[in-house]
């Protein structure tokens, strides 16, 4: 008798399984067609840092105080600026990030008192050499226009 009970319940479970998969078959797909579409990263996603655009001037907010450079535990950041005629404060001339060493700890973003840097939403990074990961953030800001 146990033989028949097992047989019937076993057969029933097979049909239940098939019922579950056929329901999944008609549901919409959940995958993303990656090269054609890419995912919008969430608000708290940490990509490499980038300069924030000042919407009034179109440039950056950086005053070249160098706090981010000092805060970085891996020495990824190099900042340089110069004094210009008729401009108050220093002007940023160089902002490079060596992303090969960056651990995305966020100390630079925290240390910045002028809202000059933030985490970007870039995640699909690929490059042929290490040099490709030394980002010139000033150039990047310009290219984004």
């Amino acid at each position: 008798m146990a033989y028949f009970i097992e047989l019937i319940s076993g057969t029933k479970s097979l049909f239940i399984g098939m019922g579950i998969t056929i329901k999944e078959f008609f549901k919409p797909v959940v995958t993303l067609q990656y090269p054609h579409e890419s995912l919008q990263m969430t608000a708290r996603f940490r990509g490499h840092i980038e300069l924030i655009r000042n919407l009034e001037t179109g440039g950056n907010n950086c005053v070249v105080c160098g706090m981010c450079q000092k805060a970085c535990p891996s020495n990824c950041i190099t900042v340089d600026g110069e004094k210009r005629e008729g401009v108050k404060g220093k002007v940023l001339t160089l902002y490079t990030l060596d992303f090969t060493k960056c651990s995305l700890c966020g100390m630079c973003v925290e240390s910045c008192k002028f809202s000059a840097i933030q985490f970007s939403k870039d995640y699909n990074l690929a490059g042929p050499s290490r040099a490709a990961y030394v980002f010139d953030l000033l150039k990047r800001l310009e290219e984004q226009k």
Partner: protein
Amino acid sequence: MTNEIIRLLAFLVGIIAFAALNAAYLVWVERKGAAHFQRRIGPKEVGPYGLLQPLADGAKLMSKQLLVPDGVDPILFKIAPLMVLVPAIMSFVTIPFGEHLAARNVDIGLLMVFAFASINVLGLLLGSWGSANKYAVIAAARVISQNIAYEIPMLLTAIALVMATNTMNLNEMVGLQAGGFWHWNLIKLTFTASPLTPIAFLIFFTTMLAETNRAPFDMAEAESELVAGSFTEYSGMGFGVFFMGEYANIVIGAALTTILFLGGWQSPLPFLPNSVVWFLIKMYAIIFTVVWIRWTFPRTQFYALLNLSWKVLIPISLVNLIVTAGWLKVF
């Protein structure tokens, strides 16, 4: 005489084209089916809906080197893929696609299909033995015991049907199921078939999966355990031909299930005309079910597989045979 030769040539070309097209596009169906069961899209880059994917796959397989490793039996190694593909194509000869659409209306058609279907296993065995690879030999041993175990219930259910219909001619068998879906052998509401026929259908379908080495009974391949089972040493089109044979066998299995249980080319409702379209609809529905099962159930363990056959399918199909005999005697 010339008409007969032209007719045979037309059927020869047609059958080979049908088998090859099915083999190519069932791979596409399989991949699309697998994808949608897992809520993916599947092949979509090559042509609209990925429809040219089989051509790309074919071109890739053909452009690959046919590697014959050292130490293999050169003759057996090369003959084996053909021994899987050719019998499958031969079986198409007796399959009645429509009322007058069969290459040869053989009186022992059912027997012939079973006879050719058994050669498939021999091909796998020879190929595995010829490749002198331990994984292939283990796969071959499994396939042989699996096929011996599953051939018995398959033939027992078929015999029960032959007893009820009194013919082995596939076309006549379809003809006896005329007049709407309630006359099909699956749920025949007349007193000519035994009441156990739906169970016989389940047994036949299960054994069909096992005979064609489909998941969950894919002991011949068993990627996770045996690399690629019998096909381990095959590369390029050697592997491709094996695969075509596998899919041709699935088509044969589905066609046979359609003919034996689902009324072949008979229309499901009496006022609709009979046509080859019904046959194809039923056949592809069965093939879809085969794909559906593959992406639902994991591979069975080997001893569970043999237990299922010897302890469940064979006793029940024997009971079915006896009940059918008694039923025919009484009514």
